[in-house]
């Protein structure tokens, strides 16, 4: 089994399975915070998937996307928290 096959047939499926688990939590909630943290973890996992994928295809270019994901995902979490604070304050 080559490295590529290993990543392709073992690692990526595990990561894919993780993604499904995370989405399960996303849908189940119950609080909005759970959804936000699930989304955050999902994006983090996505970075991992992209990392593995770039090894499989031998293209480091994909890491650029991962870089953007890492940077920007943070902002949406900030925005959601901002929303939650504003919303509660309004009440």
């Amino acid at each position: 089994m080559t490295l590529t096959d290993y990543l392709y047939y073992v690692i990526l499926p595990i990561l894919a399975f993780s993604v499904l688990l995370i989405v399960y939590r996303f849908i189940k909630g119950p609080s909005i915070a759970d959804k936000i943290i699930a989304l955050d973890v999902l994006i983090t996992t996505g970075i991992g998937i992209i990392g593995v994928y770039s090894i499989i295809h031998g293209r480091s270019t994909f890491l650029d996307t991962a870089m953007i994901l890492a940077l920007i995902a943070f902002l949406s979490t900030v925005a959601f928290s901002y929303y939650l604070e504003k919303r509660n304050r309004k009440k």
Partner: protein
Amino acid sequence: MSTLILRTASNYLLPVLLVFSIFILLRGHYLPGGGFVGGLIAAIAFVLHAFANGLDNTKGLLRFHPGFLMPVGLALAFFSGMAPVLVDQSFMTGLWFPQPFPVIGNVGSALFFDIGVYLVVIGVTLTIIFTISESA
């Protein structure tokens, strides 16, 4: 949001993100990136700063209305497109310096165009988000 942790973190992230945005802008012709994404990242840096420190502080940083970047960027794009017309070539024909520059590589009208895109995107994003924040 009045959280010290976020405020501190964002103050450090701002310059890093801005460096990153220029990096993304300049490499766009060779690798993924370019004026658009670069501009977005720069804008996001300021937005993050605004979330953490309040809008007024961020505006204080900028010193001019971000909307001003829009005409500036558009004008830059326009002149980079018009330059070839002045030498009797078609609009938006690429003009290139004969020798590649260090680091940036080949420099031509397309690069200035991309910088125009970069500026417009920053201007647009910040105008939109700042305006909403102010009237929220």
